[in-house]
């Protein structure tokens, strides 16, 4: 699968960093487990498999630990003192490598500059049709990566209300490069997330999905129309990384879930989305596109009543 390959490539990209941080993250397990246990739905703590609840140590009041911001169990700095990796055993956030900045700059000029402007501040060169181009300064690498890798950017049209998901126009490395360049203009979080789905709690993910996601994307993840011509996109075929990026950055009309979801909860939601929403197990038969009673009513009336009326035609007529 592409998605797994991309994740592997990303892992290789920062491979050395992972190796160095394994020990650190293992040591920090107890503290982080306590932090995540606190924010989890209480029902999950009653399972026999859940780790014992640990009272979290007092934290500085200004930030929630392991919730997508730089205050994390694991912090890794480079020789220049720049934060390159943060996160924990559930999600690690990587800074795109500086080596890609020149490539990214060239790609930006080629693909993005016409609308977002030379300074990436949303002011295009005079004479460009359209208006309201977003300022890209200081949004964090995850934002740039999400928009490019989900195929929404570079946009096919500058007038459409909401850019739809599509095949990516730039490859993974190009997206990383552009992210590196834009982030170099004003470094910010969130970095590029890498979710470790191993050992994810699907039950927690399902509960969090119902709480936070279903109101817009529907409980089956099929998406629906929002106000005016905006829409909550379908969550089918969204790679794990992009689900995490969307949660942490809040693209377009989507709220930002930084601070609201811990990294452990993020992992659970991503696991639920990629395992169950994108690959629904429909033990009862054809899933009817997740349209719920609309599709069911259609089948019930057309196939059920309609077919039976046709049968009744055969049964009843004798002339």
């Amino acid at each position, binding site marked *: 699968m592409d998605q797994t390959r991309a994740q592997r490539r990303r892992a290789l990209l920062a491979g050395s960093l992972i190796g160095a941080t394994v020990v650190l993250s293992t040591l920090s397990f107890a503290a982080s487990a306590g932090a995540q246990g606190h924010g989890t*739905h209480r029902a999950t703590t009653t399972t026999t498999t859940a780790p014992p609840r640990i009272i979290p140590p007092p934290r500085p*009041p200004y930030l929630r630990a392991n919730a997508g911001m730089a205050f994390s169990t694991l912090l890794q700095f480079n020789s220049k003192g720049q934060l390159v990796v943060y996160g924990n055993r559930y999600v690690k956030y990587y800074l795109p490598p500086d080596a890609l900045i020149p490539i990214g700059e060239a790609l930006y000029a080629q693909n993005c500059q016409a609308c977002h402007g030379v300074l990436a501040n949303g002011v295009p060169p005079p004479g460009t049709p359209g208006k309201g181009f977003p300022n890209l300064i200081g949004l964090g690498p995850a934002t740039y990566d999400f928009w490019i890798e989900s195929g929404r950017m570079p946009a096919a049209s500058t007038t459409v209300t909401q850019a739809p998901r599509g095949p990516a126009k730039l490859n993974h490395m190009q997206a990383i490069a552009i992210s590196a360049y834009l982030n170099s203009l004003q470094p910010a979080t969130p970095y590029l997330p890498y979710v470790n789905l191993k050992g994810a709690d699907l039950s927690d993910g399902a509960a969090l999905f119902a709480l936070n996601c279903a109101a817009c994307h529907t409980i089956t993840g099929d998406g629906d129309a*929002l*106000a005016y011509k905006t829409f909550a996109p379908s969550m089918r075929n969204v790679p794990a990384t992009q689900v995490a990026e969307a949660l942490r950055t809040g693209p377009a*009309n989507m709220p*930002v*879930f930084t601070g609201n979801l811990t990294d452990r909860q993020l992992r659970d939601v991503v696991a639920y989305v990629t395992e169950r929403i994108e690959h629904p197990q429909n*033990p009862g038969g054809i899933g009817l596109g997740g349209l719920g009673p609309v599709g069911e009513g259609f089948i019930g009336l057309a196939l059920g009543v309609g077919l039976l009326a046709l049968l009744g035609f055969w049964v009843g007529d004798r002339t």
Partner: protein
Amino acid sequence: MTDLPEESRTPVSLTPASWNDPHMQPASAHPEHVERVIAALFAAGLVAFAAFGAAYWQNWAPWTLGATLGAGMVLVGAGLTAWGKYLMPRGPFVEDRHVLGSTPEEVEAFNNALVERGATPVRRRKLLGGLLAGGLGVFSIVALFPLVRSMGPLPGNTLQTTNWRRGSYLVDRAGRRLRASEYGVGSVVSSVFPEGFEDDEEAQATDVVILIRAAKQGLQTSGPRQTWAPAGFYAYSKMCTHAGCPVGLYEREAVLLICPCHQSMFDVADGAIPVFGPAPRPLPQLPLYIDARGFLRSQSGFGQPTGPGFWERA
């Protein structure tokens, strides 16, 4: 079916029909062919039912149960229908209608029985009849108490008030107090409760609040509301003022709350005024403040009932 003489197309009553009568002949021109088809249907149905038994016994996938049962039923049913349709007397037969109403004599006899035998004795004993009617009347009124009144408590002021008080901490559904610094602009906490009531189902239905940190600030009109949303934190009752669905759909860029049930739209930055759809009233706003330790707390209650409208609502 059409090779029978024309007079057999006229309906006959059932009486004189005999086995020589064309009406009694099988409807099909080639009954033996049909019989073979029906036999095949019944045999296939038998096999399908046996397969259903096997599927149940062996606990195969759920769809195999329905497929075998359904196939068996449809096959046997089709065979049975074909039997009746093609192999049984072709008819048509006729039956007379009888006059539905009674003759005047019958009506008169009935009336006499009713009035002479029944009503007159009652009319002569007015006291007994009146007392009996009175007793039954009292019973039917009294019966309303167990039937209706005992069904639930009087509503009282449960619809009018919530559990939000001055200084209530905002907590999420796990009971964790919310800290202003944890939420960046564009964040939303979809379900927030007053501390101590996050597990109470009935309180959840009236108290629940959606907390939004909006980018647009200072758009609220003048008056006390200016201080209700510190640092852009807007807390609105999550119960739609239309039909009470949780208004959980927040559009960050449009700064709109939308009810997923009937698509009422509320302008978050302007007191959640309904801008579209059937909702009649703004979502009640919870006045917030951030205390010295950075926790989000309520200045007071909503000051009005949450949720859909009702008669006693002022």
